[in-house]
């Protein structure tokens, strides 16, 4: 089982290296290789989750290792799905390092399989946890897009064309990417909170109990709601939208880790 995880990790690292090489050389064949490696990694990663599900007897989304690994899985597949309809030039070189980083964090977390507390035994677990983490995946892509936007914008604004100007897509394309990812991510985030709340009613008898994770999810949700609202009505586009995608992702990360390790609560991981 750990073999699948190790292999996935190495493939992601290799894909990252090849994407970097493609970014510098801009040879199309290299990109095809990078994508194939990432795709193989994504498939093995899926296999890893299936195997772990069978071994654990419950949805493997309850420890930090599992959650972060699934976060990386969501990013990989969200990114690969873009290839099908919505392509962004040289996106891979920004996305794969983050995927690799998440996988490294997962690799260094405890991989033990802890028994599931009775409160968590519910078919809501896979639904709620996977939706909530997939929302993170799209927010992470928006974060990468935001960084690309700022790099590209900087070169155009300062009139000094370095490594990014010719390689990154147009500002318009990056701004569209931002909107696309945030809209999908926000939808999933909303669903994640709703399913969580329904589950809470079943498990603890109340829809909302101001558990730190709940509170921070709500804060994150409000931040993204504000971003999208301002974007549609006040014209928070472009540069500001890019910055906000980065700030919002900070809130996502805090909800993921900060809450668990600093604040505790019922959402703290089992493992």
């Amino acid at each position, binding site marked *: 089982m750990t073999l699948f995880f190790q292999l996935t990790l190495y493939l992601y690292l290799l894909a990252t290296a090849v994407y970097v090489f493609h970014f510098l050389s801009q040879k199309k064949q290299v990109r095809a290789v990078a994508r194939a490696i990432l795709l193989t990694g994504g498939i093995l990663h899926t296999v890893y989750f299936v195997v772990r599900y069978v071994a654990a007897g419950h949805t493997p989304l309850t420890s930090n290792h599992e959650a972060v690994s699934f976060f990386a899985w969501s990013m990989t597949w969200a990114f690969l799905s873009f290839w099908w309809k919505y392509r962004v030039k040289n996106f891979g070189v920004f996305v794969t390092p983050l995927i690799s980083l998440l996988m490294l964090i997962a690799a260094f977390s405890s991989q033990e399989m802890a028994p599931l507390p009775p409160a968590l035994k519910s078919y809501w677990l896979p639904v709620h946890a996977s939706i909530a983490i997939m929302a993170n995946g799209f927010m992470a892509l928006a974060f990468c897009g935001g960084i690309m936007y700022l790099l590209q914008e900087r070169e*155009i604004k300062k*009139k000094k064309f370095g490594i990014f100007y010719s390689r990154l897509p147009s500002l318009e394309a990056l701004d*569209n990417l931002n909107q696309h990812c945030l809209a999908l991510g926000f939808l999933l985030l909303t669903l994640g909170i709703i399913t969580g709340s329904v589950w809470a009613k079943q498990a603890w008898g109340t829809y909302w109990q101001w558990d730190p994770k709940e509170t921070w999810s709500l804060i994150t949700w409000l931040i993204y709601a504000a971003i999208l609202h301002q974007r549609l009505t006040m*014209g928070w586009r472009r*540069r*500001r939208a890019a910055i906000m995608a980065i700030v919002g992702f900070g809130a996502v990360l805090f909800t993921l880790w900060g809450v668990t390790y600093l604040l505790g609560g019922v959402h703290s991981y089992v493992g």
Partner: protein
Amino acid sequence: MLAESIVIIGVNHKTAPVAVREKLAFSGDCAGPLLTLMDIDGCRECCFLSTCNRVEVIFVASDPAVAAVAVRGFLFAKSGLGDAEAQQYSYLYQGKEAVAHLYNVAASLDSMVVGEPQILGQLKQAYRDAVEQKTTGVILNRLLHKSFSVAKRVRTETNIGGSAVSISYAAVQLAKKIFGSLQDKAVLLVGAGEMAELAAEHLVRQGIGRVIVANRTLERAAKLARKFNGTAVGLAELTTQLAEVDILVSSTGATDLILRKDEVKPLMRQRKNRPLFLIDIAVPRDLDPEINDLDNVYLYDIDDLKNVVDVNKAEREKEALRAEGIVAEEVVKFGLWLEGMELAPTITAIRQKANAIREVEVAKTLGIMKSLTENERRSVEMLANAIVNKLLHEPMIFLKNSTPHDNPQLKLAFIRQMFGLDKESPEQQPPRENV
């Protein structure tokens, strides 16, 4: 040697000043020159290229030295210059040098603006004309086709045409980096001068949606607007229009700034932060340089654009060096083909191919039939030998015997194609470019 029969004689911007080039004066029609050239004694194939920067004749002749004088005479017929002067203003390449020169021309390495893309189209047209007049044969057909693929290789493997080397094109490229597609975007031209017109032409060619012209005298604005199917407005409407458009090209003769930061700032709120690309090509400048400090506003003046162009030019020169490497490689390849296009090497190549097939097949068969005696094995080998030799007999006779009406190269090319002697690995299909 066959290679030595390929000759290029021509005049270009490097060898002759425009005063000489314009006297050569070949206009549009190519059929006339092509037929005159074919009448030259010993000229077997020819192709005629005439652009504003060059006139050249690419030909294959049995006696190149004699034909060269005649071709030069034809080129300079209308100029009134003698052959000595004509030699001084023109260049002559023969054999591999001619091949290299043609590749350089096709790949735009010999152009005034290195990497400009038009020359390849012009060369392709010249070739089409020659094909129509049936003045090309085995050698030029292959040479010209190769030159097109070399040009394509240079274009895909180097970044020679990648960056803009003219001011207006640099501006268009920047606009595309900001807006992506220009289709639903609008440009406002302030001032109706020549520079504004040139920039607008580029933008229209890139598919810009709408053109608006603002000028002090409305009449001139209307005239320019008509040219681009646009609308004309007075200069007083500048800020109202600026709330709507995406690109502004300013080129007025005004001595003072016509647009300041405090005027643009409130506009950005109104525009809901849709980006604004301001191009100031006027000297003295029309637009306040501080406008560039505003968010989502990008202001480029003439010097900024010139810097972009200079950087790009230096980049192109670097890429040109890499391109020359590709050309050198391809010249060698063509040389190999030319060498094969003689009788002896072709016969050798056919025999080698047949023998290679025979050896493999015999080995395969003997590998299966292990129980054969030594004598029987020899019989199998002899059988294979006999089949190969008898099959090759007639084609060899066909190749070696020539009647006076035969075109030996056509025959060689035909046989080589039949036996698949010049097969290269199939060219890779380039993958789709992403957005």
